[in-house]
């Protein structure tokens, strides 16, 4: 067919657009009339002046603006490809390092420029405080996906820690800084421990409450904190013992005396500017680096899918606590800097609106984006300050810019995500390995399930089920939908705790009792891996990253729980290279090398299924539980999968437990089949025995399918 592919532009519906603009203008009228139309005299009294023209202007602006917006959007829906902003960004991407260094040099030199006055330096300092806070919160919200509405609490803890230590014990700023970070971090962990079981909205409400609690405690514990008056006369920082004061005390040397220059107030401001610049730079380097470490990947994986994380042996509580704690430490640093800059603090600096602004910086910048935070902080902090010239229109302008950004880039200013590790371009010095389980010498089965029973309310999903799976075997579990197959998997992998029964996983002669282990231990310690019926990948991470998350435990140990990684020691680099090499083996076997650096969520269903199997194998399991791996595959693809599974069985010697409805596949590759119906075992045997079993044909296969396959 040779259809003309040029898109015909449908005409814009003028009537509907006019109506829409009219409604917007009416709303503007209703708002502008009381807000802008009447003006009470400044000195009080009941006489007021009217400003009809203001209302007219507001209504006309809204009407015309709405029309223009509709036209713009109409034209945009036809346009192809990436927007101009995205194109500029991708054009700049190769020079990002130069741009970063250039930007940093500019920021570093700013206070030394002849045009830099007090206000500019002060403003720069303020913006950098928020950038630092934004980066801290970015770890919690953007990476780990934990919505924290009380972030300002840690900022407050940092500020008060510094203040109290400095005022009461005379410690200097540099002594207090790490302590303040430590206290804030401890607070984060203490708060996190009980509440991190919660997710999403619930976590947000609890953290919101925590933020308010801290503020109220600060107000009411007046013996310690000075109540709502706060604490004044906080000592400023010193440069190697040099103070920034016109009149140094006895035995002290002031900055201007040491350098024999006249005293100027701006010296202190410039010094503060450099302190926060250094702090922000350290925060930046730290964040960039930790995002590429196993712990950073684990944060993102947790944001994407907590259930999958547990199935890969990640302990969600520890990972969340580390994100919460590190975010709090950074807020603590920023807080103690805030205190020393202000010279006084009181609880009114730590209200909910501060948390909201920091969160807005993270969201507006594009969750998880380092540079996005800088852009958003510039817009959110600088704009209201610069717009002071517009007097009473300041906030109107600010609101307008906010609305425009959200219309223009609803997911934030910068939403591109750099993968933490890339296969292409990764220099692999070593060849990967896979596990090989020695042939089961003893008589013990790999997994022995005895009298397993699981009830949900009145419904008995599994009823006194016993069976065994051997190493080096593919054991299939089949049965009608709703027979309890997936429930068996959920019991084995620790997602459900069975009411009755024992599940013994063989382990070098001993056994692990799976029913007594936490979900993540079953993968990490007992080495049972699983896939999911409805595919649980980390969709916004690349295929390789998915496989790297599966090797979390080993990489964490190799990186000394991140310290070796942060320092860039070769110990960690070698371990990471080995992990990539191991992952590459599975990428090659599953024919995924080409898509290794593609976001997993953009790939098709069948490819995602393969990724899930590769990810499970990267945990080096002794038992692999596959929940309908062939669903959504056509016969050719199923056959390729059969080959993969039999290869895994024959080459690694691990046991495979398989739930599947594709009978051709089950009959072809299984060594042993167990048939469930209504939670009980109705048959157990080799494929040939099962095919002929009348009970199985009745409940599951159907008459005509039983005979040939």
């Amino acid at each position, binding site marked *: 067919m040779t259809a003309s592919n040029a898109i015909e532009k449908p005409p814009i519906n003028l009537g509907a657009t006019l109506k829409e603009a009219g409604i917007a203008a009416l709303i503007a009228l209703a708002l502008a009339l009381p807000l802008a139309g009447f003006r009470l005299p400044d000195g009080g009294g009941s006489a007021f002046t009217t400003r009809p023209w203001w209302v007219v202007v507001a209504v006309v602006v809204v009407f015309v603006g709405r029309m223009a917006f509709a036209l713009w959007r109409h034209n945009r829906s036809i346009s192809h490809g990436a927007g101009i902003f995205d194109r500029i960004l991708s054009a700049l991407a190769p020079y990002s390092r130069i741009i970063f260094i250039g930007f940093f040099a500019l920021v570093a030199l700013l206070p030394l420029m002849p045009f830099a006055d007090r206000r500019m330096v002060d403003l720069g300092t303020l913006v950098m405080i928020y950038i630092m806070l934004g980066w801290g919160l970015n770890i919690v919200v953007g990476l780990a996906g934990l919505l924290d509405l009380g972030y300002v609490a840690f900022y407050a803890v940092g500020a008060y820690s510094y203040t109290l230590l400095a005022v009461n014990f005379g410690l200097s700023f540099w002594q207090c800084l790490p302590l303040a970070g430590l206290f804030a971090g401890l607070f984060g962990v203490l708060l996190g421990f009980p509440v991190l079981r919660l997710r999403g909205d619930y976590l947000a409400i609890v953290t919101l409450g925590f933020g308010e609690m801290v503020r109220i405690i600060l107000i009411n514990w007046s013996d310690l904190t000075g109540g709502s008056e706060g604490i004044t006369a906080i000592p400023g920082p010193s440069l190697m013992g040099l103070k920034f004061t016109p009149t140094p005390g006895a035995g002290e040397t002031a900055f201007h005396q040491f350098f024999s220059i006249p005293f100027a107030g701006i010296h202190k401001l410039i010094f503060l500017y450099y302190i926060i610049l250094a702090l922000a730079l350290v925060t930046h380097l730290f964040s960039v680096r930790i995002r590429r470490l196993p712990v950073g990947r684990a944060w993102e994986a947790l944001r994407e899918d907590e259930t999958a994380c547990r199935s890969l042996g990640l302990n969600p509580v520890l990972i969340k606590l580390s994100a919460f704690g590190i975010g709090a430490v950074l807020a603590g640093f920023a807080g103690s800097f805030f205190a020393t800059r202000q010279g006084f603090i009181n609880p009114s600096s730590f209200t909910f609106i501060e948390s909201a602004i920091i969160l807005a910086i993270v969201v507006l910048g594009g969750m998880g984006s380092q540079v996005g935070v800088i852009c958003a902080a510039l817009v959110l902090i600088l704009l209201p300050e610069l717009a002071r010239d517009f007097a009473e229109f300041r906030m109107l302008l600010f609101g307008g810019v906010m609305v425009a950004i959200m219309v223009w880039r609803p997911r934030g200013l910068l939403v591109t995500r750099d993968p933490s590790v890339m296969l292409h371009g990764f220099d692999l010095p070593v060849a990967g390995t896979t596990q090989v389980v020695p042939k089961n010498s003893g008589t013990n089965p790999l997994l022995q399930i005895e009298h397993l029973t699981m009830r949900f309310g009145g419904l008995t999903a599994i009823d006194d089920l016993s069976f065994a799976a051997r190493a080096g075997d593919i054991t299939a579990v089949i049965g009608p939908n709703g027979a309890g197959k997936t429930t068996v998997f959920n019991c084995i992998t620790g997602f459900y705790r069975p009411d009755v029964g024992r599940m013994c996983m063989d382990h070098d002669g001993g056994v692990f009792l799976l029913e007594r282990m936490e979900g993540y231990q079953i993968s990490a310690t007992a080495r049972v891996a699983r896939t999911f019926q409805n595919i649980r990948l980390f969709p916004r991470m690349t295929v390789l990253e998915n496989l790297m998350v599966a090797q979390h435990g080993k990489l964490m140990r190799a990186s000394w729980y991140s310290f070796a990684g942060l320092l860039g020691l070769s110990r960690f680099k070698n371990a990471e290279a080995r992990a990539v090499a191991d992952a590459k083996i599975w990428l090659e076997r599953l024919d995924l090398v080409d898509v290794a650096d593609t976001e997993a969520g953009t790939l098709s269903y*069948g490819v995602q299924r393969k990724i899930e199997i590769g990810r499970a194998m990267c945990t080096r399991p002794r038992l692999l539980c596959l929940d309908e791996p062939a669903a959504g595959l056509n016969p050719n*693809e199923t056959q390729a999968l059969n080959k993969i599974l039999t290869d895994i069985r024959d080459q690694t010697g691990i046991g495979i437990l398989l739930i599947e*409805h594709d009978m051709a596949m089950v009959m*072809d590759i299984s060594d042993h089949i167990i048939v469930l119906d209504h939670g009980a075992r109705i048959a157990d045997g080799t494929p040939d025995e099962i095919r002929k079993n009348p009970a199985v044909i009745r409940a599951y296969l159907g008459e005509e399918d039983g005979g040939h396959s």
Partner: protein
Amino acid sequence: MSQPLLSVNGVQSFYGPIQALNGVDLEIREGEIVTLIGANGAGKSTLLMTICGNPRARAGKIMFDGMDITNHATHEIARLGIAHVPEGRRIFAHMTVLENLLIGATPTDGTNIEADSQDVFELFPILEERKNQRGGTLSGGEQQMLAIGRALMSRPRLLLLDEPSLGLAPLVVRDIFKAIQDINKSRAMTVFLVEQNAYHGLGLADRAYVMANGEIQMTGTGKELLSNENVRAAYLEGGHSVR
């Protein structure tokens, strides 16, 4: 039958940053069952989603009953009479079966809800038994029936089915395909079916298309494609006897 009910003309579409459709042409006439088969990643699901306006086609034209719907919003397309049963069913797990069905009736004026839900219960009697149960507690096969029933509640003229046999036991697969045939025959519903289970999918199709790499590779009646050597080799046999 002068003009097709749905015609897709040179449609290109992107899934994220990846071009999934490279100019697809096909048409579906009133009363037909048309099946689309193809390997994973060929763009089958993306085509169904593009017909529903999410994502919108970047190029080409989609006509439904003589109207250009290429740039319509998804909810408008649903109102025009195209119902989509998505891959993986996507039922509302925390709402009851009946509530799921009632939501399905949103695009209608609401006067036929009683009769329509009775029709669905007739087609899938198990749903009536479970009507006050939450959707998430249903078995896979029942959820698929609910997803189809929910789509039927919108009184569509064209039913788009994305892999209805996914993850279902053999007996249930047969029930579902029987129901699809029944919907087509007794209710004169036009059906566009995307299926991996090519044997079943082609078996009940009046006409079928084969898709690869975002393009239509082949077309013919269901029977023609079932007996076509290339199709058999690529999508049916895979080393197995056909079930």
